[in-house]
């Protein structure tokens, strides 16, 4: 193996003892630990990273605990079979209880930001208006949040992407254009991006401004303590306060907890473990939940997928993965009516293509052989805005591990059917010769007329229709009324005064856009309020 010409600042700093980074590998513990701090943060993704940045800037003593490993650019070798087990929950095979929806969610230092596709959107105004009206979130307006989005956009180099879209995205743009459907460019959080197309396997050039290369190393410079490869098992509470947290170092297999315990006594606890793991931790800990709201309203942006074969090469594995989108079917399908969806294109690599294409044997292999000519579109359903779209429920198994039930209602199925038809029409409009909605009963269709008729008759059922998700939100909904919500608008738990939820699990609905920037902006504000409060000691905690 030759030496990499791309420097890995994380590896360099970890190897250089004089830097003084306080990093503990939970898989290599040889004894129990007891740690005291001002704030302990559970999780290191968009929420945890942003919270650590803010709280360490305020001079607080902060400990971060992450279940996944600490990997960095020299480990990111652009191979799916290495990346998925290392960097994703359940080796990128996390599924709902009935196996109907496959969920891509990160599990490494940096969380999903280490593996996401860099799409950066501010929270749509329609979503914020819905929250203000229905969830009493008065200071979640476009105006209130704008300065926080600006701050995080500057922090993470979120900007228009000046390079032309790759062919996979350009087909989406051209198809929309021919049908008169407005489409636009996606902003990205990158600096000096090589346009490789492997963001989902960890950025090998450190161009993606994920938490892994921004807030977390900066926080470590300011004295953050980070324990990775450790799972938080339980919170203990007494008289409405969290009194301690117990984590265990992971076993060498990386999937079960090992023998050594880490006990943490912190003045405040920030949960940022994501919308499946946060509710599961609170359920395991039997925290107060007087209105049975915990783990409810978990949202996924359940996504339909449509594949097409083009005459020319698409090479959707190459180039920035997501650069074009259309919100036409969000803007023209307002809340309360038929389900709206966002249109995007995903990167297509061999494993992801293989497991998403339906069927097996010769038919499946025939599609795989056209990989270089494959175009794929996805439609992300905006869940949580209609009485028939209440999302899923997180529960815990006997062993304490989380499981998500996400029943898909007829209303959502009809939205998914509509989305399959729309994507098919766009792909034919862009020149596709063959289009196939990803469904066990679909066939390759040769014209829009043929496809339209067939899609109308597809049985929209779990396990027949491919449904995927890369955005897990909700489960610890915020809202002004404790009867509806787990936490308040400022992120504080309704019943527990020193417990805060700072990540996408706080959203009371889905976002209707890739959620990373929504998390960054909202957490930046809520964490800075917490930091201010801790600098001017609250009399209750003095």
């Amino acid at each position: 193996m030759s030496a990499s010409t791309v420097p890995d600042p994380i590896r360099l700093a970890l190897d250089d003892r004089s830097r003084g980074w306080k990093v503990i590998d939970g898989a290599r513990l040889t004894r129990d630990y007891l740690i005291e701090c001002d704030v302990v943060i559970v999780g290191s993704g968009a929420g945890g990273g942003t919270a650590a940045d803010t709280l360490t800037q305020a001079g607080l003593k902060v400990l971060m605990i992450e279940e996944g490993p600490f990997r960095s650019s020299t480990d990111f070798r652009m191979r799916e079979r290495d990346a998925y087990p290392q960097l994703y929950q359940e080796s990128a095979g996390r599924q709902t209880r009935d196996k109907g929806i496959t969920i891509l969610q990160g599990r490494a230092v940096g969380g999903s930001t280490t593996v996401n596709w860099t799409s950066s959107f501010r929270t749509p105004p329609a979503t914020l208006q819905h929250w203000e009206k229905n969830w009493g979130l008065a200071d979640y307006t476009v105006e209130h949040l704008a300065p926080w989005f600006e701050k995080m956009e500057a922090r993470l180099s979120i900007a228009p992407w000046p390079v032309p879209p790759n062919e996979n995205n350009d087909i989406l743009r051209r198809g929309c254009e021919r049908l008169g459907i407005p489409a636009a460019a996606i902003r990205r959080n990158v600096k000096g991006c090589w346009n490789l197309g492997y963001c989902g396997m960890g950025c090998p050039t450190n161009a993606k401004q994920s938490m892994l290369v921004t807030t977390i190393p900066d926080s470590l410079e300011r004295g953050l303590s980070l324990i990775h490869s450790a799972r938080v098992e339980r919170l203990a509470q007494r008289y409405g306060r969290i009194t301690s947290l117990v984590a265990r170092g992971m076993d060498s297999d990386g999937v079960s907890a090992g023998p050594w315990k880490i006990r943490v006594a912190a003045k405040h606890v920030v949960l940022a473990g994501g919308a499946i793991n946060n509710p599961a931790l609170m359920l395991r800990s039997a925290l107060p939940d007087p209105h049975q709201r915990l783990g409810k309203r978990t949202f996924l942006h359940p996504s339909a997928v449509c594949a097409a074969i083009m005459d020319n090469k698409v090479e959707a594995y190459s180039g920035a993965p997501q650069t074009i989108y259309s919100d036409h079917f969000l803007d023209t399908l307002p809340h309360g009516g038929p389900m709206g969806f966002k249109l995007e294109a995903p990167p297509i690599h061999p494993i992801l293509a293989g497991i998403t294409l339906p069927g097996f044997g010769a038919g499946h292999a025939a599609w795989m052989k056209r990989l270089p000519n494959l175009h794929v579109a996805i439609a992300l359903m905006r869940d949580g805005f209609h009485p028939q779209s209440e999302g899923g429920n997180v529960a815990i198994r006997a062993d304490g591990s989380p499981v998500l039930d996400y029943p898909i209602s007829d209303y959502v199925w009809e939205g998914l059917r509509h989305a399959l038809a729309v994507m098919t029409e766009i792909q034919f409009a862009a020149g596709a010769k063959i289009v196939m909605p990803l469904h066990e009963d679909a066939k390759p269709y040769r014209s829009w007329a043929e496809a339209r008729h067939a899609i109308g008759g597809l049985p929209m059922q779990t396990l027949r229709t491919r449904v995927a998700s890369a955005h897990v939100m909700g489960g610890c909904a915020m809202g002004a009324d404790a009867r509806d919500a787990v936490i308040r608008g400022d992120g504080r738990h309704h019943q527990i005064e020193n417990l805060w939820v700072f990540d996408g699990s706080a959203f009371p609905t889905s976002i209707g856009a890739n959620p990373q920037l929504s998390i960054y902006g909202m957490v930046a504000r809520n964490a800075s309020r917490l930091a201010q409060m801790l600098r001017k000691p609250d009399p209750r905690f003095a």
Partner: protein
Amino acid sequence: MKVFSRRAFLKTGLAGACLLAAARTLDREVFAQESRPGSLDLKKLANKDAELIAALAPAVLQGALPDEPSARLVAINEVIEAFDRTVAGLSPAVQREVESLLSLLTFAPSRRLVAGVSKPWNEASSDEVAAFLEQWRNSRISVLQQGYQALARVMIACWYGNPLSWAKIGYGGPPHAAELGLL
């Protein structure tokens, strides 16, 4: 393909549930001491699981595996090893689900009843294997559909994650390998 009556499905489903319990307790113990194929280094899978995967692979990956016999054997062995690594990377709860599925399919009585395959997997014809996969894929019993999808998708992931599979699908592998120190 034969269309089963609702009653046949119900019988299969109920009997399958009883057999599953038997399969899990009996079968694992009987085969616990069994030796593994010398050439394969398996952490989680037993020899009979490996035989099952070896029997399913030519059907699931028809048209994708190499045609040349020795290359084909290497490919199938690498699918088995990757399947093993995949199982090891799942959470304990999901590992138990996979173990139940493999037990159901490798315990002879349940293999016959629920999978409809009369011979041991290493003697089953490719038509029988394909018929089993197609039957489970289209089953009205969701747990069988889940079982089909789990097997097919893990095997597909195990093959297409392997650089040996890439030439046939026109994928050149990661770019800039030299600059990024990947060689």
